[in-house]
């Protein structure tokens, strides 16, 4: 933001032109989270036990593993978008704001990749019948 010309005084104070995209993606992922979250909670209740072998046998099946990976992608993306809004609302220094949002993206991509990899590893290394 400059302070010389009339246009320089207002440049940078307007919208970031990412709002509609952010808003829509938050809704798309919210819709996904609604169904995947309901499935996940129901599954936790219906599993006979939450001991390691029972959970691993459950994730060895293709559909639960797929649904859990979709849940991770949808919730992590939604969480990143939500935390971005919190940062934008409470961090007022432009440099810190941009830095934190960048860091947020890196952390969520890294941790999300780890989570997806864990599901794949559990699913692909658990023996026995997959049905």
């Amino acid at each position, binding site marked *: 933001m400059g302070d010389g010309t009339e246009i320089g005084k207002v440049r940078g*104070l307007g919208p970031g032109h990412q709002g509609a995209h952010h808003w829509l993606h938050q*809704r798309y992922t*919210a819709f996904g*989270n*609604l169904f995947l*979250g309901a499935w996940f*909670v129901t599954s*936790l*209740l*219906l599993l006979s036990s*939450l*001991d*390691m072998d029972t*959970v*691993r046998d459950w*994730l060895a099946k293709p559909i639960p593993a797929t649904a859990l990976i979709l849940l*991770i992608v949808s*919730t*992590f993306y939604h*969480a*990143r978008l*939500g*935390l971005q809004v*919190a940062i934008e609302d409470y961090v007022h220094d432009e440099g810190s704001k941009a830095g934190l949002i960048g860091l947020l993206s890196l952390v969520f991509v890294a*941790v999300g990749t*780890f*989570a997806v*990899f*864990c*599901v794949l*590893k*559990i699913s692909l290394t658990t023996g026995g019948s997959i049905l």
Partner: protein
Amino acid sequence: MTNRPLSPHLGVYKWGPHMLVSILHRITGDGLALVGMVVLVWWLGALAYGGSAYETFAWAAGTPIGYLVLIGISWAFFNHLCSGIRHFVLDIGAGFELHENRRFSVATLVAGILLTAAFWAAKVLL
């Protein structure tokens, strides 16, 4: 940014259920994004590493603090889910009449608590 007009400050409004729902949506959402993610990733990591890693997770989850965190996450999940559905309704332009908005806000809070209680009751009984 100096000398720009400001909207009326938060402090001038009388508190109502819609304000509580709004701030709880943010608190539960950011709570799930931070605490919920850590617990989910710990659980998945423990399952992937197996053996003593899962024992450590199961031990931590079974302590009083563990239960407190898990109950907190479950309430945050159900509360955020209910207020999220409220957001979908508000997004289409419905539910802004004063009395309806108030009723819907209270229903959101009650439903979040009831679903949490139902989840743990089912967990114990099933």
